[in-house]
């Protein structure tokens, strides 16, 4: 059971990052390889505001998310919008370039050391059937589920959320309804950045933050998105949770160093057997 709890914790984070991948993929058909960097950025911003400038946590949190949101907008404006030749491979490589830049800028600002974000909630271990779970883990799981639920509500109920879904379905048709697809694209970058920022904030007290954290968490989130199948929000969350649980169980049977290898191994296996992800629908190919 203990493995289940730790798996759920890391899995929630993967799911959150996978959601971010999904939002951008749905509006632009693009994999944003800088997604992990936004998680790192969230951790770094909360560290600066909360631990260095000692801003009260409840002020620091919205400021951090706002920061991620704004950087997300800038990111879209600078890298994606300005690119003259928007082929898929060009844009994907561009996001990789952007991630390199973000990582290094972060290194210059915050240095190479792991930074510890102080606990902002009381740390207690809760006795659960078959093991203990820390209050931080509970927070992570709860917040992730809340964000996933909130995103779902936003997309289902609000006018702008519906407009985003319309763009996922058919961008040209959305334009003929008077929806400005460009703003929706900017919005999707901003929202997914803010979501990554939340992930960064909630994990930072447990894992610390380092400037190059983004690579691994980005890859795992990407893996979770692929595992679930791109283009499906709940599948992304499920993919994340599955990946997390699987990782933590595999750590019990094989040396922990191979944990990450196992995760990728399973993803490869799933891609071989079901090329559109576990819950993905097969896209009709036109000849």
């Amino acid at each position, binding site marked *: 059971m203990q493995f289940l709890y730790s798996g759920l914790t890391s899995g929630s984070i993967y799911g959150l990052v996978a959601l971010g991948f999904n939002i951008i*993929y749905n509006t632009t058909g693009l*994999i944003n390889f800088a997604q992990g960097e936004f998680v790192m950025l969230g951790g770094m911003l909360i560290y600066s505001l909360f631990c260095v400038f000692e801003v009260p946590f409840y002020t620091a949190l919205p400021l951090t998310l706002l920061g991620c949101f704004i950087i997300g907008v800038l990111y879209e404006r600078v*890298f994606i919008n*300005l*690119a*003259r*030749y928007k082929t*898929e*491979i*060009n844009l*994907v*490589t*561009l996001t*990789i*370039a*952007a*991630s*390199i*830049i973000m*990582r*290094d*800028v972060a*290194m*210059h600002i915050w240095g190479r050391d792991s930074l510890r974000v102080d606990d902002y909630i009381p740390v207690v271990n809760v006795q659960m059937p078959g093991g203990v779970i820390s209050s931080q883990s509970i927070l992570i799981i709860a917040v992730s589920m809340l964000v996933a639920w909130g995103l779902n509500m936003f997309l289902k109920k609000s006018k702008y959320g519906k407009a985003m879904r319309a763009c996922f379905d058919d961008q040209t048709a959305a334009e003929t309804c008077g929806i400005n697809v460009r703003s929706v694209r900017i919005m999707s970058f901003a929202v997914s950045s803010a979501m990554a920022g939340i992930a960064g904030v909630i994990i930072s007290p447990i894992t610390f933050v380092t400037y190059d954290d983004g*690579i691994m968490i980005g*890859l795992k989130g*990407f*893996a979770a998105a*692929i595992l679930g199948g*791109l283009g499906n929000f709940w599948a992304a969350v499920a993919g994340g949770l599955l990946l997390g649980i699987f990782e933590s169980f595999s750590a019990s049977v094989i*040396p922990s*160093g*191979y944990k*990450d*290898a196992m995760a*990728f*191994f399973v*993803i*490869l296996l799933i*891609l*071989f057997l079901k*090329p*559109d992800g576990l819950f993905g629908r097969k896209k009709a*190919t036109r*000849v």
Partner: protein
Amino acid sequence: MKRLNFTFLVLMACVLGYIGTQVTNEYYIGVATLLLIHAVNATALNILLGYTGIISIGQAAFFGLGAYVAAVLSTNYGINPLLTMPIAAAAAFVLAYMVGSPILKLHGNYLAMATLGMGMILYIFMNEMDFITGGPSGFVGIGDIIIGKFDLADEKSFFVFMSIIFMVFLLVCELFDKSFLHNKLKFIKNSESACRSYGITPARTKVMVFASMAALTAFNGAIFTFYTHFISPVSFSFKYSVELLAMATVGGLGYITGGVIGAVLLGLVPEIFSAFEEYEMIIYGGLLAVVIMFLPGGIAGTLKRLVKRNA
């Protein structure tokens, strides 16, 4: 069949000859050797991505595989270094062939993910199987390549060796590029369905190309081993795969010259900007971003267009 681009070949030979005979600074020669190694890797990736449309973000793993196979075989089992190179290549070929058959059925982002996953797995194994690879602290005590009575221990003789390998490689690439074989790959990249209705089986061709380029990269990895005499997983991480991707893209996808230009340019960044060592990666990323955003076809493609316009 088209004529070979002799200007480029001769130019490269002259540059290499000049460095080999005139430059005495060992450090510069070392940099030149490394650039050649990068250039071979970047060109191999370019053939995958620029010609065939296979996006591979796991090339560093094949490079590392070759390096470790050569290191282990020559150091622990006393096999002649020259002999370990084809063995390393064969090992990578077999692995890539096996992994490639299912992977290459995927497209776009899924293919990227699969190659990336494969790269990560190999990287983790390099780190964790410390009883063979020495783990994160690296593999030490690798010998020299000895050809007859020449011991390629010093920078200069190794550079000559690498230059010869590189020129042969470049010649083969040119032959490939001008022989209509590359057209077949571009057909596959352009439309697999059209290819199939003309009797070409894209899957088979793609696996062959993927495995061949893996073998080439591994061969190159073996050379790298005997040049540095010390290898550790850091050299074969995700970061190096991305650097290769950047070299191929900046240089120009779909041009043989592209991989070489990209490797030289991006390989030199750390040297030229050594005064700003701290900012090396920012310059690197910025250069990559600017080229992608404003120069389609990379530097080679842009040069070609300029030449055409003036002609």
